[in-house]
């Protein structure tokens, strides 16, 4: 009885997977993205990229939650953060995760870059992935900088003043940079709006597709080290995928299936 239900469920599941696969190709895409040979030596170091991705996803999720209460105006910004921290349920947790994962993000990105650098993973054919990664790193730095002002407390305010004024030392365009960033010639409501727009809309919108490009390039060339250290494992994996593909297309003979069971 249980065996039959199980078999039926598996059958239905296969039908559903096949149906979706036929129409979207999602199943084979999932397989392509999930199966990846990873060098055995120093395997933990290869999790740093995933850790970065995880922390960025946390930033997106908690950031969206914070937007439910945060008010980006000079007279309410600080109060709304105070409300999040003291009155909203789990507000401290949500904002704490946003704050701490932002801090850890910088550290983890540094480690991720160091791993890439010292293992030589930026070399051909992965140069462009290094370039995309550096752009992502710069975007995250600007995100951290713009997020600091949104608290609108003494700490964030003066740090931003110093940060913006560093921009005033750019040759020839110093004044323009400052006026563009603060939205006028004095820090005020426009400054907060600008930093809010940059932090919440502009940069995440650039960041998300670039992460996609970063991952695509990673999958295109594979983890560094896999191709010459693990050719054997790679060959086995290819063989297995080939067999599975064959199985899915033509199905197995009745006898074969029975024999397997």
């Amino acid at each position, binding site marked *: 009885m249980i065996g039959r239900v199980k078999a039926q469920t598996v059958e239905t599941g296969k039908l559903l997977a096949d149906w979706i696969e036929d129409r979207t190709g999602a199943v084979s895409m999932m397989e392509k993205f999930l199966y990846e040979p990873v060098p055995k030596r120093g395997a933990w170091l290869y999790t740093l990229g995933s850790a970065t991705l995880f922390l960025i996803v946390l930033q997106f999720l908690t950031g969206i939650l914070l937007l439910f209460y945060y008010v980006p105006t000079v007279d309410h910004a600080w109060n709304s953060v105070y409300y999040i921290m003291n009155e909203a349920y789990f507000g401290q947790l949500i904002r704490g995760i946003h704050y701490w994962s932002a801090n850890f993000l910088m550290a983890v990105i540094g480690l991720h870059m160091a791993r890439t650098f010292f293992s030589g993973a930026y070399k051909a054919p992965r140069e462009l992935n290094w370039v995309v990664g550096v752009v992502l790193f710069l975007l995250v730095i600007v995100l951290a900088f713009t997020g600091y002002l949104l608290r609108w407390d003494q700490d964030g305010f*003066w740090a931003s*003043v110093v940060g*913006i*004024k560093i921009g005033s030392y750019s040759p020839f365009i110093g004044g323009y940079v400052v*006026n563009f960033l603060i*939205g*006028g010639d*004095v820090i*005020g409501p*426009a400054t907060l709006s600008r930093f809010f727009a940059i932090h919440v809309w502009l940069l995440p919108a650039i960041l998300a597709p670039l992460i996609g490009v970063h991952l695509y390039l990673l999958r295109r060339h594979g983890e560094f080290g896999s191709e010459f250290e693990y050719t054997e494992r790679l060959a086995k994996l290819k063989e297995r995928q080939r067999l599975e593909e064959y199985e899915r297309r033509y199905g197995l003979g009745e006898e074969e299936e029975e024999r397997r069971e």
Partner: protein
Amino acid sequence: MAELQKDPITRSDFLGLGVIGAVMGTILTIPPVAFVLTPLIKTEVEGESDVLRTWERVDHVANIPEGEPVSYVIEFPIRQTYGDDRIQEESGVSQQEFTVRNGVWVSWRDGQPPEVLGGIGEGDEVSRDQIEELTQHLNVMNSTCAHLGCPVRWVAEVEELLCPCHGGLYDINGEHIGGPPPRDLYRYTFEIREDGFIYITHEFDGDPYIV
């Protein structure tokens, strides 16, 4: 090359595409760029300022002590994204509510008040000659460091103004004597009026960028 020639593009086609491309590009680019750069165009090209050119009262000259500077927080009304006077009035939001707070250090030159100050108390009428004498001996400085804009504080033991961020040092006249700042503290345009009070406006002897 051979493949490209299969679908040849004539010279006039090429020119036409270029012209249309340029026109479309311009139409699509100018509005968003100008939109985002509005404050930059208004301040840098048209010379407008967000800070209203009001004269704010600081303090009476008799209250400026000898030998050390004294600090004030002065608020200037600003006009930024909230619109002009008419809009503010109609929406019921007063412009005066939106201000920029400036830290101001006021001191006598080298800490020595001029002799004419002796006879002046609050409520006395100050004559034109006295005003001139007082004006020459008064320092009215913005408190933000000329380096990266942190507020400087007075350290009485060494009689210097010190920036807490990167160690910029200024003397009692706001003149740069050490550390990274490229110049002296920014000085306000100020005037002493006949009632003996100091008035300042949001105008400096240079461009401090953020104050």
